[in-house]
Structures are given as C-alpha cells and as structure tokens.
C-alpha cells in the first residue's frame, strides 16, 4: 500500500517536473519545448527551455533536501515545530550573506552561495556544541538554535537598517526564489546535497529508535550520540546547501513531514522517502504557479509555497488526528 503510494508520488513528481519545464512566464508552444529538450540548436526558445531545466533541477534538489532535513530534524528534536529555521540555519545563512554584501562587496549569486553555506554550517556546529553536544536533549537543541537565531537576526536587522544597499538586496533574497538558478549554482551545491540525502535516508532506522525515548532507544541498542551527531550533520548540510542556492524557503521542511506522517504513520523508514519525493512536488508546483499568476512578472516560490501550503496544512491539521511524534 505504502510502496504503491510512493510509486504514485514519483509519478506525480515526474509530471510536475515536466510541467515546470513546459510552463513559464514566457509562453512557449509544446513544439518549441520539444525542440529545446531534444533538438537543441540555440534558438530563443531553446535558451528559455535550458534555463527552465536548470531551474527545475534546482527545485528538485532543494525541495528534496528541505523536506528530508525537516523530517530528520523533527524526529531528532522530537518537536513538531522543528525546521531549518529553528536550529538557526536560516539565520546563519542570512547573516553570512548580509555580511558578504555589506563588508566584502559580494554582489553575484554564485558568490553568495559559499557564504550562505559556510554561515549555516558554522551555526549548525555551534548549536550542536551549545545544545550540549554529546548530552544534547531535544529541548536544549531547540533553545540553543532559537537563541542563536535571535542574536543573528538582531545583527541582520541592524545591518539592514543602517545600509540601504544591503536592504535592497536582502529583501529579495530572504523570500526564497528559484529564479536565479544556474548550472554553476547547481554544481556548487550538488555534492553536498547528494551526500546529505544518502546519510539522512540511512538514518531512518536509528532515528525510529530515538523517537521512542532515550531509555528505550538505548535498551534497543541504538547509539544515541552517533545518531544525533549524524542527523544534525546531515540536516545542516542539506538545509545549508538548499538555502545557499535559493534563499530561505521555510515552509516546506516544516509542512511536508506533517502531511506525510498523516498517511504513513510514525515509521521514519517511510516518512523519509515520502518526504524526499513529495517536497519537490510542492516546491516545483508552487514555482510553476508563481510563474503563471503574475505574468510577465513572477511571484517568488517562497511566497507561493506559504500562501498555498498554509491553508492546506491547516485543513490537514483540523481534519485528521495528526500523528504525534
């Protein structure tokens, strides 16, 4: 049953990915899209299709990373509110990007990527250390993340208030968008995303044990410290890389695991693969809608995800007895 559902989800993902290549702010005929995909000769249509392919690839990768990271973090902290934002990863990336803009004069997106990634990785490590490293408990991790976010957002706002140029860039970066995807960006983050995804998927079993509580997990033979350290590392790498490439898209990592849990139950061996497949469906679907509703301009994907996803999320929370963690 659940395996069939997963197959259906993969089919859905394929459809959305194709739609994301075929539909956009510029209207192209299906023939032009076909031409761009398989008989590329460098016409205007081909260039547009090429850009859409990069964008779709980034959407696939980033969506999967965010959903997977969210599911891992919620299991790790045993907190339904856990998302990349909670552990300070978004704050680390944002603070690092605003520093790059203001003090290092970085203006290109490929330049931001490394700063954003370094910032989120540094904050992830710091949260882990301050949260108690080996003795980390879920609440302490969450509180440490919140505290560091508080401090970093203070810094971020101070810079934006004093430096108008930083504000004019950051206000677009912080809503999260796939529009700036290039092959260059994808190449930069791809290795991190692949490693993070593999590690996260392998963690399903030990995380299942952790979910039963520390004592039970120990009795079942799970290595709590190793599981925690690995999950934290995987989640940081995944969200850090995704955030670096498209800015903080907050809602996916939070929402998709809840939705998935409502039909798979609490078993992470199912939640993680489902989250990996369904998160990009949401991200790409939202991106397609964002390209169409405001033609010829675009609505950033972060905005569309939240405005569409929010009501769906509330509906699901109301309708079902959401499976507790």
């Amino acid at each position, binding site marked *: 049953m659940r395996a069939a559902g997963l197959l259906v989800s993969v089919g859905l993902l394929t459809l959305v990915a194709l739609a994301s290549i075929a539909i956009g702010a510029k209207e192209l005929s299906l023939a032009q899209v076909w031409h761009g995909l398989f008989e590329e000769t460098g016409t205007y249509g081909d260039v547009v299709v090429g850009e859409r392919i990069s964008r779709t690839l980034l959407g696939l990768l980033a969506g999967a990373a965010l959903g997977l990271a969210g599911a891992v973090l919620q299991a790790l902290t045993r907190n339904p509110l856990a998302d990349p934002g909670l552990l300070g990863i978004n704050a680390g990336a944002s603070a690092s990007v605003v520093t790059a803009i203001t003090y290092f004069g970085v203006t290109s997106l490929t330049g931001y990527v490394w700063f954003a990634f370094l910032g989120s990785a540094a904050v992830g490590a710091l949260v882990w250390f301050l949260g108690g490293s080996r003795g980390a408990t879920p609440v302490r991790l969450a509180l440490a993340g919140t505290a560091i976010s508080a401090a970093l957002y203070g810094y971020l706002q101070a810079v934006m208030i004093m430096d108008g140029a930083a504000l004019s860039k950051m206000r677009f970066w912080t809503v999260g968008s796939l529009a700036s995807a290039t092959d260059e960006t994808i190449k930069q983050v791809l290795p991190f995303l692949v490693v993070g995804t593999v590690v996260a998927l392998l963690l399903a079993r030990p995380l299942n044990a952790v979910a039963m509580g520390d004592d039970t997990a120990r009795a079942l033979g799970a290595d709590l410290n190793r599981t925690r350290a690995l999950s934290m590392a995987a989640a940081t790498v995944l969200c850090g890389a995704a955030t670096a490439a498209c800015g903080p898209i907050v809602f996916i990592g939070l929402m998709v695991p809840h939705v998935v849990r409502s039909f798979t139950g609490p078993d992470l061996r199912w939640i993680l693969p489902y989250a990996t497949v369904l998160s990009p469906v949401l991200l790409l679907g939202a991106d397609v809608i964002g390209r169409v509703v405001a033609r010829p301009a675009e609505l950033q994907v972060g905005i569309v995800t939240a405005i569409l996803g929010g009501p769906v*999320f509330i509906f699901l929370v109301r309708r079902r007895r959401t499976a507790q963690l």
Partner: protein
Amino acid sequence: MKTQVMSKPAGRGRALRSPGGLSARLDIRAFVVVVLLLLAALVASVVLIGTGDFPIPAADVVRTLLGDGDPSQELIINDLRLPRVLVGLLVGASLGLGGALFQSISRNPLGSPDVLGLSQGATAGALVVIVLFSGDADQVALGALGGGLFTGLAIYLLAWKRGVHGYRLVLVGIGVSAIATAVNGYLITKADIVDAARAVVWMTGSLNGRDWEQVWPLLIMCAILVPTVLANARGLRMMEMGDDVSYALGVRVERVRMLLMVAAVLLTAGATAAAGPVSFVALTAPQLAKRLTRSPGPNLVPSLCMGAALLVVADWASQRAFGADQLPVGVVTGVLGGVYLLWLLVTERKAGRI
C-alpha cells in the same frame, strides 16, 4: 512537550495555612527572583531616563520623579523620557506575560507569539497600512492591533474542534504564521525602498518617540488584564498536568483556556501596536524566568517582570552602544535575549542541571 526544570519535591517553598483551612504556597526563590527583577527594571529605568543627548545624573532623575527637580529637567524627564520608559516597561511586561501564557497553553517552550503567528499577523496589518496606504504612525498602530486581533481570532477558531488542543493550536499557529510571513515578504518586495526601510524599522520594534498617548491605553490594558490572568493562574498551573487531571481537580478547562488566550492575544497585540513586534522578548523572557526561579509551572509573575526588565535594559544598551535613536530596541532584545539564553544554557550544563 513541556520542559520542566524539575524541582526537588521536598523543601521547596513554604505552605502558609490559615486556621479557616485556606492555604497558599510561597515559593521563596521565585519571590526573591521577582523582587530582584523588579529592582533591576527600576534601576534600569532610572538610568535610562538619565541617558540621552542631555545626560542627567540618577539622583536628579529620582528627585524630579518624586516631584521637586528643577523645571528644565522636569520638562525633559516628564514629557520626553518618562513616557518612553513607561511604554518600554509596559510593552516588556505584556510581552513577557503573553509569552508565558502562550507557552503554557500550547505546552511548548517554543509556543510564543512569534512562533504562533500573532506577531506576523500584527506585522501584516501594519505593513498593509505602510505599503498600501502610506499611513501615519497612529494608523500603523491601529493596523497592527487589528492584524494581531484578527490573527488571534483566526488561530483560535481554526484550532477549535470540541475544545482547543495544545498541539493543534501550535500547528495551526504555524500555518497562519507562514501565510502571514509570506504576505509580509511580498509586501516588502513590492514596496518602494523608502517604505521598505520604514517597514523594516517598524518590524524590528522601536521605542523612539513614544509619548503619553501610547502609555495610557497600555496602562489601562495591563490594569485590567494582569489581575484577570493572575486570578486564573491556579487553573493554568493545573492544566499543565493535562486536561483530564485538571478537569478532575475542578478546573473548567475550556473556559479558563479561552479566557487566558484572549488575554494573551490582547496583551501581545496591544504591545505590538505600541512598539512594533519587538523580537524574542515573548519567547525568551519566560524561559529565562523559568531558569532563574527553577520552578515548574507557568511562572507568570517572574516572566512579566523579566520581560519589563529585559526591554528597558535592551533600550538602554541600544542607546549607549549606538548613540541615541540610531538603532531600534528590537535589534538589541534579539542579541541580548539570545546571548543571555545561551549563557544560561551553558552554565546549566556546567552545573549538571538539564
């Protein structure tokens, strides 16, 4: 998922009993913490009144406040600086109390108004006024109040299903918060850069230029709501043990919860309308208070005092560090609250208390 700094079962607090069978528990440590926090808030207020382009020694400040200072200082203190400090104290107290209520009702240490979407809803109300109508400060405050109240009502109604369950409340709050955040992000990208800059300053939370017009509504609100909340604190304390247990103990769970939620929404929305969504006070104040008193339960009074002290100290720090009115107080509450919470986490770990 409720954090509780567990207390030793015996030897904590003292029960006061009257011959008629009435009894009250006095938690000595909590009491001392409250007194110290009040003192801290008071001292910080006096120092803050003395700080500015025209410094006034603390002794003069106290003399003027008691009613016999010289006229020039009286003007500066009574008309300019005192109302600002009072707004700071009241906003901090409202946010601290509102945060403690929400964290207790949602049974989640992260269930503060920042996370549940109230702040974002109030911000959306204010941004609509700033970006779409270019309204003045009073209209922005009204917009924020309207946005906050509307969001609070929406969250409550959407989470209602034969009662409001803590977990569902939090999840619905997150959904609403995400929608409001997206609307805010959209409004800011659509605004021209001048409006965007104004919006960012408002969103940070600021006490600049607050006068008596902001003090009176806040004071009236607190005078009504704080006693109401404290009168129901006993029920809230029992509700942390679970709805069934508290029902058996004679608490009308749903009624108390609704009353307290309405109070918390009003406190947060009122504070946000007066000073903007000052970040993290509502989130950190109850956590800090809980760690200082080491007492389980909602810690309402300590959180209230902690919020007030935190905001006034932060305002003083922002004026000292960056010069008068350069940076809004919200920048510093984030940094100060965050760093203080980290420090507490580290010392707690060293002391072996988790």
